[in-house]
């Protein structure tokens, strides 16, 4: 491979990683939505909470140990998890619910999503330095 080919590949690599992760994240989100009952948007809640836990862990890992490199963050974070979770579907579903259920839906996604980020960071902290976390 010539040097210019290698450079072109190096420039394309982030796009490829994001594309592969984005494909997998969207497909898995759809699978979760199909697997859970209709009516109440359980699928969106499930992907948003699970994805927030994983992204909280992944990005916090970068600050504490950094063993996972930039490629992993592009593939798993920017590609997979950001595509797996969704704000637009959450907003659309919220707008279509009754006012009372809409409030419950927002509260559930926000509360469990934020708690999941904290839990993901806590999990990394205790795995990275078990003696500190006790």
């Amino acid at each position, binding site marked *: 491979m010539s040097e210019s080919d290698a450079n072109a590949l190096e420039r394309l690599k982030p796009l490829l990683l994001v594309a592969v992760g984005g494909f997998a994240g969207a497909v898995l989100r759809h699978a979760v939505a199909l697997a859970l009952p209709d009516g109440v948007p359980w699928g969106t809640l499930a992907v948003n909470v699970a994805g927030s836990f994983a992204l909280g862990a992944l990005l916090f890992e970068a600050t504490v140990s950094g063993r996972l490199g930039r490629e992993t963050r592009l593939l798993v974070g920017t590609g997979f998890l*950001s595509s797996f979770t969704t704000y*637009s*579907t*959450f907003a659309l579903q919220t707008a279509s619910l009754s006012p009372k259920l809409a409030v419950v839906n927002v509260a559930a996604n926000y509360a469990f999503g*934020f708690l999941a980020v904290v839990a993901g960071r806590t999990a990394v902290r205790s795995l990275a330095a078990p003696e500190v976390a006790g």
Partner: protein
Amino acid sequence: MNAFLLVGGGGVLGALARFTVGSVVADGRRDTFAVNVLGSFALGALTAGLAADATLLTVFGTGFCGAFTTFSSFAVETVELYERGERREAMANATVNLVGALLAVGLGGWLASVV
């Protein structure tokens, strides 16, 4: 075509578009807000305008808009603000994403129904 392939194809485009917005708007929170509001507008418009075309709605609604917008980045950025002690900014971030996305869904749906 297989619905999973349609969603995945839309997801590739949505993730790449989000990545591109992120490279242009080099501020994590603004970039997340931008994709969430734009994607919610598009999903509102598509849902109202393409109600009869299940295939296009699967590609662009579930695939593209679902992947273009993100809850996980929004949640991480909000929690980071809060943990840094910027609690007012954290609340503001949580509020503007919600209000912006809900207004955008409504506006998109309304525009698609009158055009």
